[in-house]
C-alpha cells in the first residue's frame, strides 16, 4: 500500500507539472503577451513599445526560466534602471533589499490577477468557497436521488418501473447543463411562459416567478430556496442519470448472485433481501463512479455558474481564460487538475477498502 501510494503521488506531481507547463506555455505565447501588454499599458502602443514593455516586465526571457520563477525554483528577475530596482518579487514601493529572492507557488505566492486587481490566492479562496457551497448542495440532492433511482430500477430487472426509470436516466444523461438550465429557467423562472405566470395568477406564489433565473444574489444576501434551486437542480440532473445507471448495473448483478437466491429460498422477504443482503454489496461500484463524477461536476459548474451568473470558481475560470489573465488562469488550472487527480486517487483507495477481494500490491 505505501509503495502504491508513493507511486501514485509521484505520477500525480509529474502530471500536474506537465499540465501547468502546457497552460503556462499556451498563455505565454507571443500573441497573448502582446494582448497583455496592450491591455496593461495602453491599447495604442506601437510594436516597438510592446516589445520593450514585454522586455521590461520580465516576459522576454525563455519560457522555461519564467516557468521556474512561477514555480519558485528560480530566483525572480530583477532590473535596475535609473537607480531604481524593480523585479518580480519586489512589490510597488517595496525596498529591493527587503524583497525575497524567490517568489512562486512553492513560496505560497500565486501572483496578481490582472483582471480583478487582487492577489490570486485571495480570489481563488473566495470563489472556491462559493463553489464549495454549490457543490455541497448538488451532492446532497444528487447522491441520494441517483442511488434511490438506481436501486429501485435494478431491484427487479425488466419490470415496468425499471423501464421507466431507465428511460429517465438516459434522458438526463442526454441533457447537457446548458440545455437543462435553459429548459428549467423557461419552466420555472420566466415571467411569460411555464409555471410561474399560472402560479402567480392563482396567488400561490408571492413573487413574479417560482424560482429565480440568476443566482447572483445567493452570494450577497444568502442562499434561499428561491435563488439556489435551479442551479443545483441543473448540475444534479446531468449526474443523476449516469450514477443511477451504474448503480442499476451493479444492483442487477448482485440480485442474480447465489447468496440472494439462497436468502430468498430460505424465505426472507423481498424487501429484507434488498435492504440487508443486496444493498451493501451493490453500492461499492457507485462509490467509484460518484468520486469520478467530481471532474465532470467541475465542467458542469463552469457552465452553470456562467448561465446563472454565480460568481464562483467556474465563473472565475471563464473570466480568466477569456481575458488571458495568466496567473489567475494558472492557479485555476492547478486547482482543477488537483481536484481531478485527487478524486482518482481517493476512488482507487476507497475501492480497495470497500472491496476486500481487490488487493493493491
Amino acid at each position, binding site marked *: 500500500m505505501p509503495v502504491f501510494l508513493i507511486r501514485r503521488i509521484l505520477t500525480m506531481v509529474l502530471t500536474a507539472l506537465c499540465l501547468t507547463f502546457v497552460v503556462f506555455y499556451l498563455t505565454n505565447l507571443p*500573441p497573448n503577451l502582446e494582448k497583455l501588454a496592450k491591455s496593461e499599458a495602453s491599447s495604442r502602443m506601437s510594436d516597438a513599445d510592446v516589445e520593450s514593455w514585454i522586455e521590461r516586465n520580465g516576459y522576454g526571457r525563455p519560457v522555461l526560466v519564467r516557468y521556474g520563477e512561477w514555480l519558485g525554483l528560480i530566483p525572480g528577475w530583477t532590473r535596475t534602471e535609473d537607480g531604481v530596482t524593480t523585479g518580480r518579487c519586489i512589490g510597488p514601493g517595496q525596498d529591493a533589499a527587503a524583497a525575497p529572492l524567490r517568489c512562486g507557488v512553492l513560496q505560497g505566492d500565486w501572483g496578481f490577477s490582472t483582471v480583478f486587481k487582487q492577489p490570486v490566492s485571495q480570489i481563488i479562496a473566495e470563489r472556491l468557497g462559493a463553489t464549495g457551497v454549490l457543490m455541497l448542495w448538488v451532492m446532497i440532492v444528487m447522491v441520494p436521488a441517483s442511488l434511490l433511482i438506481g436501486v429501485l430500477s435494478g431491484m427487479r430487472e425488466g419490470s415496468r418501473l425499471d423501464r421507466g426509470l431507465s428511460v429517465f436516466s438516459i434522458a438526463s444523461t442526454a441533457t447537457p447543463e446548458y440545455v437543462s438550465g435553459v429548459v428549467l429557467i423557461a419552466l420555472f423562472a*420566466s415571467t411569460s411562459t411555464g409555471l410561474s405566470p399560472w402560479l402567480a395568477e392563482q396567488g400561490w406564489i408571492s413573487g413574479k416567478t417560482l424560482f429565480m433565473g440568476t443566482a447572483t444574489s445567493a452570494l450577497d444576501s444568502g442562499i434561499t430556496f428561491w435563488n439556489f434551486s435551479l442551479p443545483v437542480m441543473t448540475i444534479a440532473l446531468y449526474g443523476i442519470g449516469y450514477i443511477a445507471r451504474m448503480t442499476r448495473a451493479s444492483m442487477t448483478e448482485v440480485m442474480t448472485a447465489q447468496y440472494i437466491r439462497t436468502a430468498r429460498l430460505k424465505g426472507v422477504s423481498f424487501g429484507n433481501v434488498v435492504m440487508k443482503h443486496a444493498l451493501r454489496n451493490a453500492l461499492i461500484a457507485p462509490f467509484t463512479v460518484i468520486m469520478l463524477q467530481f471532474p465532470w461536476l467541475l465542467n458542469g459548474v463552469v457552465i452553470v455558474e456562467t448561465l446563472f451568473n454565480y460568481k464562483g470558481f467556474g465563473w472565475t475560470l471563464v473570466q480568466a481564460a477569456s481575458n488571458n489573465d495568466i496567473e489567475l488562469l494558472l492557479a485555476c488550472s492547478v486547482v482543477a487538475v488537483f481536484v481531478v487527480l485527487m478524486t482518482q486517487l481517493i476512488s482507487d483507495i476507497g475501492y480497495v477498502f470497500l472491496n476486500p477481494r481487490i488487493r493493491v500490491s
Partner: protein
Amino acid sequence: MDALSWGQIFGRMAWQFWPVWMALILTFAVSVRFKRRLGLYGKLYDSPVGMIGFGLVMFWVFTALFSGVIMTHDPLTQVSGMKNALPGFPQKGAEGAYYLLGGDNLARDVFSRMVAGSVLVIQIAPMATVFAFMVGITLGLPAGYYGGKLDTGLSFLANLILAFPVILLFYLLVTPEIVQSGLPQYIGVVLFLFPLIFLTVLINSRLYVKPGLRNLLVGLVAVIGGWLYLSLLSSPGTRIDLLPPQADALEMPGNILIVFVSVVFVNAPTVFRIVRGLVLDIKTRDYVAASQTRGEGPWYIMLWEILPNARGPLIVDFCLRIGYTTILLGTLGFFGLGLSPESPDWGSTINAGRRLLSIFVHPAIVPALALMSLVLGLNLLADGLREESLKD
C-alpha cells in the same frame, strides 16, 4: 394577417418537414422488410428503444440533408419588424410568410436557424468521432498488445489530456490569439495522419502475401488520402497554406477546422483507453494464441483478430460518443468559442438566446430541445444496440 395558433404552427412545421417523413417511412419500411438479412442493424428493429433512438437520429440526419427544402427563411437574413417575434407571427408585406417559431433578438427566423444548425452538427459530429476512433484505435491497439514502456508512455499522455477540464482546454486551444499562432492546425497535422496510417496498416497487414494488390491499394490510399489530408488542412491565409486553391478539394472554413480538431483532440484519449482495455482482455484468448503460433505478424493479429472481436462495445461507444461530441460542440458554441457569432449552430444560438431568457423563451429553447432530442436519440440507439448485441 393574424398570428398562427399553436395547432396551426405544428401543422405547418409538420408540413415543412415532409421530405424527412418520406425518407423516414422509406428507411423504416425497407429495413423492417429485410431485417433478418441486415445483421446487427436489422436486430435493432426488434427493440422498441433502439427503434425510437434510430428514428430520432435519422430525423436529424434527413433534416440536415433536406435543409434547403425545409427552411422557410434564410438563417442569416434579418427581417425588419420581426425582432423577438412570438411563434407564429406573420411577416409584414409578405403574404403567407410566418416565423413559425418566432424571431430572435436580431430578427432572424428561429425555425430556419434550428434547421440550419442541424447541418453543422451532422457534418461535424460523426466525422469528428470517426477521426477520434481512428486515433484511439491506432494508438490503443499497440499500447494494449505490446504493453511495456510504449503503454506507460501513451497512457500517461492520455491521462494528461483527460485530467484537463474540457472547457479550459477549449479556451486554451480556440482563442483567437492561439489560433493565430497556428497551434490547432499543427495538432490537426498530427491527428489527421492517423486515418491514413490506420488504413495503410490495415491493408498492408491483410494483403501482405499479395504484393501486387497491396501496392495498388496502399498507393490509392496514399494518393487519395494524401490529397484529402492536404486539402482538409490547408486553408489560405493561415500558417498552413500548402495547396493552390484550384487543387483544394474540401473547402472547410478555418474556424470549423479548428473546432473539428479540438473536438477530436478531446475525444481521442477516451477512445484510446477503451480500446486499450478491450485489447488487454482479448489478447489472452485462444484464437490470438493460435494466430501467434501460425506466425502471423503483430499488426495482423491486432487489426484482423482482436479488433473485429472488440466491435460490439466499440459500436455502442461510437453512438454514445457522437452524442457526447454534439454536447461538446454545443459547449463550444455556448461559450462563443471557435464558431462565428452569427453561425446558426445550436450552442451559439442558445448562448445568444439566454440573455433574454426570462422574457423571450423561444430563441433559446428551440435549439436546446433540438440538441437534447438528437443526443437522446443517440443514447437510446446505443442502449438498443447494447441490448441486442448482448443477446448473441
